[in-house]
C-alpha cells in the first residue's frame, strides 16, 4: 500500500534522527541567541526601562524614537561609512599580506624559519592596553593620529592569522607543490594558482573575523582619533551617553543597526563553506 510505504519512508530511522537533531540544534541555537533578542527588544524600549524587565520581550510601550533619532543623527551614517572603509581596507590588505607570509612560513625553507616564527608570536602575548601610550606617541610621530589609516595599517601585521593560515597551509600535502615545481612553476605561481584556491575556507574565515574585529574595535579609535567626522561607529555610539547616565536603549538601537553588515557577511560566507570545498583536487 503506497500510503503505508510513504509513511514508512517518512518515519525512517534517518528521518527521525534528522528531526531529532533539528530539535536539539534549534533549542541550542535559541539558547545562544537570547541576549541578542534581548538587545533588539531593548532597542525598542524607553531608555530607563531598557533592561528593567528584560524578559518582557515585547515592550510595554514601543518606542520607535531610538531608531528615528539614529537616522536623523548628524554623524551616525558618517561613522558607519568610516567603519566600513576601515574594515574593507583591513580585509583587502591584510588578506594579501598575511597569506603571503603564512605561505612562506609553511612551505618555503630558510634558515631559522621556525625559531623566527615563535619569536614573532611573542607580539600576540602582550596586552595592547599596556602599549597604548607608547603607540600613541609613535603614531603621532608618524602622522597617523586622527586619520583612518591609524586603524588600518598597524592592524595588518598581527601574527594571529599568520599562525592560523600557516597551520592550514602546512596541512596541504607537499606533493601538489612539488609536482608544480617539476613542471617549472615559480613559488608565486604555486601560491596563487594552487594554494589559494585550496584554502578558501581558511581565507574566508580570516576575512570574516578580520572584518568583525575591525568593525567592533573600540579602544584604538577612541584613543587615536578625536575629530567627530573621522570617528568610527563603536566610539560614536558612546556619544549616546551623558556624564551620569547611559541612554541604554538608544545605544542598543545603534548596536543593532551596526550588526547588520556583520550578519550579512556571515550569512554570505557560510555558503562558501558548505559548497565547493570537497573538490580539493587531492583525489588526484
Amino acid at each position: 500500500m503506497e500510503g503505508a510505504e510513504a509513511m514508512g519512508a517518512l518515519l525512517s530511522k534517518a528521518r527521525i534522527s534528522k528531526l531529532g537533531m533539528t530539535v536539539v540544534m534549534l533549542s541550542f541555537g535559541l539558547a545562544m541567541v537570547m541576549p541578542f533578542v534581548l538587545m533588539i527588544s531593548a532597542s525598542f524600549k524607553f531608555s530607563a526601562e531598557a533592561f528593567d524587565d528584560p524578559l518582557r520581550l515585547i515592550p510595554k510601550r514601543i518606542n520607535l524614537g531610538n531608531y528615528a533619532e539614529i537616522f536623523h543623527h548628524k554623524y551616525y551614517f558618517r561613522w558607519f561609512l568610516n567603519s566600513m572603509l576601515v574594515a574593507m581596507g583591513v580585509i583587502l590588505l591584510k588578506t594579501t599580506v598575511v597569506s603571503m607570509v603564512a605561505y612562506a612560513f609553511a612551505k618555503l625553507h630558510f634558515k631559522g624559519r621556525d625559531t623566527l616564527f615563535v619569536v614573532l608570536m611573542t607580539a600576540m602575548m602582550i596586552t595592547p592596553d599596556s602599549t597604548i601610550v607608547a603607540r600613541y606617541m609613535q603614531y603621532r610621530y608618524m602622522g597617523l593620529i586622527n586619520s583612518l589609516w591609524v586603524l588600518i595599517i598597524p592592524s595588518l601585521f598581527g601574527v594571529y592569522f599568520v599562525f592560523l593560515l600557516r597551520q592550514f597551509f602546512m596541512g596541504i600535502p607537499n606533493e601538489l607543490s612539488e609536482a608544480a615545481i617539476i613542471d617549472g612553476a615559480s613559488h608565486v605561481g604555486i601560491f596563487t594558482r594552487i594554494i589559494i584556491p585550496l584554502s578558501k575556507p581558511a581565507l574566508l574565515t580570516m576575512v570574516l573575523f578580520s572584518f568583525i574585529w575591525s568593525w567592533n574595535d573600540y579602544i584604538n579609535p577612541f584613543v587615536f582619533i578625536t575629530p567627530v567626522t573621522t570617528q568610527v561607529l563603536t566610539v560614536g555610539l558612546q556619544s549616546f551617553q551623558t556624564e551620569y547616565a547611559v541612554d541604554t536603549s538608544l545605544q542598543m538601537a545603534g548596536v543593532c543597526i551596526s550588526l547588520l553588515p556583520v550578519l550579512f557577511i556571515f550569512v554570505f560566507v557560510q555558503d562558501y563553506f558548505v559548497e565547493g570545498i570537497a573538490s580539493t583536487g587531492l583525489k588526484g
Partner: protein
Amino acid sequence: MHREEAKAVVIFVTPFLLGYLMFEALPMVSAILISLTNINSLSGLRDLHSLGFAGLSNYAKALSDGPAMASFGRSLLFTLYYVPALNAFAILLALFITRSFYFTKFVRTLIFTPYVTNIVAVAILWGLLLNPYGGIVNETLKLMGVSQPPMWLYGMRTALPTLAGISVWKDVAFQMIVYMAAIKNVPSELYESAEVDGASKLRQFLSVTMPMISPTVFAMVVTSTISSFQNYALVRTMTNGGPGDASRVAVINIYEQAFEFNRFSYASAQAIMMLMVIMLITVVQWRAQKRWVHY
C-alpha cells in the same frame, strides 16, 4: 631552485617583516623600556629629565606585590578552565553542525550571535539567569533538590569559573567555524576506507578526524591560551574583578595601574611579566606538538 626560493622568501616575507618591526616589535620594545624606568605618574611621562633608570625594581616590586601575584594566579586558573572547555565544545559543535538536519544555516547563524552581541546585553542576560536569588537556573536547581545552589557570579569561589563558562559561550562560534573548515578538508576517502575496515563513528573520529585536524587544533589551543589572558572587556563588564577580588585577573590589575593610577612603568613591568608567562606556556605547547600533531 634555491635562488628561486630565496627570491620568493624575500617577496613573501619582507613586507610583513618590515611592518611587524614597526608596528608590533617597536611598541613591545617601548613597553620593556618603560618598565625599566620610573614613569609612575603622568607628569613623569612628559618631564623627561626627571626620568630615572629603575632597573628591575618595578619587577621586584611586582613580585612582592601580593594582590598583583594573586591576579596572575587567577588569570592562569581562568585559562585552565577556559581553553579545554572552549576547544572541546567547539569541536563537538563543529561535528554536529556538519551533520544533516533542517534549518542548518539558521542554526549556524544563531550560534554565531553571542560572538557579536554587545557585552552589556550579555552581562545582563547572564546576570538574570544566574541570579542567586530567584534566577531561573537556581530556581530549577532548587526544584531538583539542590538545597544550596551556587552563587555564580557573586560567589567568591564560583565567580571565576562562571566567567570562564560565559566566555566560552561567547567565543565558541569562532573556534567552531575554524574547526568546521578544518573538518571539511579531511578527504572523504579516509573515512571510506576506515568504514570499510569496520571502524565505528567514534573510532573514525579518533583515528581519522583528530589527527588530520591536529595542526588546526594546535593553532586553536595556542591562540585561545594567549587570548584567554586578554579578557579585559568581559571581566570588566560582568564582575569588574568582584566580588571583592574574586575574579580580579591580571589584565584588570594592569589596566587599573596604567589608566586609573597612571603608574605606567609598574603596569608595563606586569604586562611584560604576563608576556613571559604566556611565552613559557606557548613554548611548552610548541615543543609538545611533536607528540600529537601530524603534518
